């Protein structure tokens, strides 16, 4: 697989690990946040943590769109499906996000809701066209990467005058979340979350470009390296961050030059701008209400806005009392700090959203990294 396999090479990885071990200053501690769940997933799945020197600590950020979807939003979707009889379409990852009353879209489906997993927003529109007597709602989630396809499908629905299709939009904005974290008391005042730099999002940046991260480097003096999601990309980005820290620089660097430019994908930005406008504020699971951090459908496309069409009101719902997702998404805690981790909360029965997607910090650690929590003895006994 060209442009994939080369970036997973084990020999290169070992050499890079050795280089990194030499490059870190022994007395120094490097605390980097990988904003994206994609990086979290790569770190866990490929066992990158094993290859990092002890001086480097990776902090998982809030960059998983499934994880930050608040309960109240899932509740809206479930109510549409269970009470209003709509055919609710969404991406597979969203099906198991816990909502109120021990429900999830998957459990609502088992209670008779018509919930369909789609691979693409276009599939949802097609379902609407194939079922003209049904109301079809696409529950859209995602960061800037996923917004352009949603915008396209809304424009397409408008062109084709599909009357029974609408979108419950939950598209959120990366820079707002980074700002929020940098301004959080743990980072800005108390320093309980020491943050020496960011591994920046690869696929978000394909769309928005690298330029939007310059303010963090300039204004907050934090190094940012935009990195691909293959494991060698991640290791290389860490090396680049280590170099910036060692040299006292704070710049936006781009490891993912093969797909990210400073200005991003103009065509994608244009269709998003045509269909969406900023929301004043939006609730993120874990981060709370973040100003100017999400998109809403423009009045010109109001007919396709499920919130207007079904006159939905948003009721915020607090997370499970003992769930530490919020603190974990802000980098304040680790999954194993949560009392429910691995006992009450598992991927089969997630109590919080971080345990749902394999990009969630809890799920990634549970599925791939749990062995690290216990001393492990490998004995080979000839029998």
């Amino acid at each position, binding site marked *: 697989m060209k442009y994939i396999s080369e970036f997973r090479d084990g020999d290169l990885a070992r050499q890079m690990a050795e280089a990194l071990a030499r490059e870190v200053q022994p007395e120094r501690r490097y605390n980097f946040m990988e904003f994206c769940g994609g990086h979290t997933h790569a770190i866990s799945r490929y066992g990158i943590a094993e290859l990092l020197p002890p001086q480097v600590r990776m902090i998982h950020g809030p960059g998983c769109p499934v994880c930050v979807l608040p309960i109240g939003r899932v509740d809206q979707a479930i109510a549409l499906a269970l009470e209003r009889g709509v055919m609710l379409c969404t991406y597979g990852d969203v099906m198991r996000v816990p909502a109120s009353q021990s429900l999830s879209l998957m459990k609502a489906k088992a209670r008779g809701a018509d919930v369909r997993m789609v691979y693409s927003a276009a599939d949802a529109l097609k379902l609407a066209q194939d079922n003209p007597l049904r109301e079809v709602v696409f529950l859209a989630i995602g960061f800037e990467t996923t917004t352009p396809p949603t915008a396209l499908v809304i424009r397409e629905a408008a062109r084709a005058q599909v009357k029974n299709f609408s979108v419950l939009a939950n598209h959120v904005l990366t820079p707002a979340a980074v700002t929020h974290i940098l301004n959080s008391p743990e980072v800005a005042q108390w320093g309980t979350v020491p943050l020496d730099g960011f591994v920046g999002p690869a696929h978000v940046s394909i769309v928005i470009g690298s330029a939007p991260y310059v303010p963090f480097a300039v204004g907050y003096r934090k190094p940012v390296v935009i990195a691909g999601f293959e494991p060698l990309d991640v290791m290389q980005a860490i090396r680049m961050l280590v170099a910036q820290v060692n040299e006292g620089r704070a710049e936006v660097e781009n490891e993912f030059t093969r797909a990210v430019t400073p200005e991003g994908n103009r065509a994608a930005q244009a269709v998003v701008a045509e269909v969406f406008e900023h929301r004043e504020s939006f609730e993120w699971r874990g981060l709370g209400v973040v100003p100017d951090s999400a998109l809403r459908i423009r009045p010109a496309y109001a007919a396709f806005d499920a919130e207007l069409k079904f006159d939905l009101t948003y009721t915020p719902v607090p997370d499970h009392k003992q769930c530490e997702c919020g603190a974990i998404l802000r980098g304040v805690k680790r999954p194993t700090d949560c009392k429910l981790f691995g006992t009450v909360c598992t991927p089969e029965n997630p109590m919080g959203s971080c345990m749902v*997607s394999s990009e969630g910090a809890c799920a990634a650690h549970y599925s791939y990294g749990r062995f690290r929590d216990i001393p492990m003895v490998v004995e080979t006994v000839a*029998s």
Partner: protein
Amino acid sequence: MSIKKDYIRPLDFKNGRVDMNHGAGGRASAQLISELFARAFDNEFLRQGDDGARMPALPTGHELVMATDGHVISPLFFPGGDIGSLAVHGTVNDVAMMGATPLYLSASFILEEGFALADLQRIVHSMAAAARAAGVPVVTGDTKVVEQGKGDGVFISTTGVGAVPAGRRLSGSLAQVGDVILVSGTMGEHGVAVLSKRESLEFETAIESDSAALHTLVAALLAAVPEGAVRTLRDPTRGGLATTLNEIARQSSVGMMLEESAIPILPQVDAACELLGLDPLYMANEGKLIAVVDAAHAEAALAALQAHERGKAAARIGVVTEDPHRFVQMNTAFGGRRVVDWLSGEPLPRIC
């Protein structure tokens, strides 16, 4: 009135459909059985025509083995097979994994009203061909029809009976620390072949399901090593290699350490999984086995697998370890280490 043939109007296998009458137990049911099932599966036992079948005693010195599986796959037809051949292979293999020789199959069909007789015929013929190829006859069966919207075309539950030498013990509970873990070939083809035909996922690939009967492969393996050297045989079906290994680890209260680079996976399977955000270790196989083998005989076992047509790509993928947590772990090809957990939930395509 002269004596009339039983069914003057034969079933319309071109345009006909299953209707409720075919399951009511009356003449329409009898016609479906005689014109389709009895003809396709024909063998001396089924020909007895009773509500059960009588077969000879097991060979002396053998014990009885029994296994069952319900088959509910969607789509019904997929590259490399269909629900009919799968229903034979799935159960023949479960019998074989006990170290037994599969002898007989029963088949219970649950048809949905409206199912095309042409599709049913194709499935039954494929099933009959698979049973014949495996040398395991379908000796008795049953057919029910459920209303439209209460089934999904056809479900097939098969049960297999086999004979195992009385002294032989194979079980998921017998894996021992230090044992070697083998697989008989590349992982994940069946799961990917089926997903490639799922509505709304559709993609093109040359991958075919590996669906196949494995009892001759098992016989070759067991003949190559002393009795007792093979601790466990299991076919990594639903849940794939990862989940099946976790099952064995739990049953035997051991851990496992795998080498990712040693696990044989076709490049196209890898690619399809990348595309869908899935992991080939969780993709179902229907013609592969896992063998946990005494390390002292692992080489002989591997050679025996590789010498068989169905085991050419067999490989040694890891070892059994002591671990009270019963973790299945893996050294990644990248150089790290990770847990290889049970499948959790359904393998849904992932966007994140």
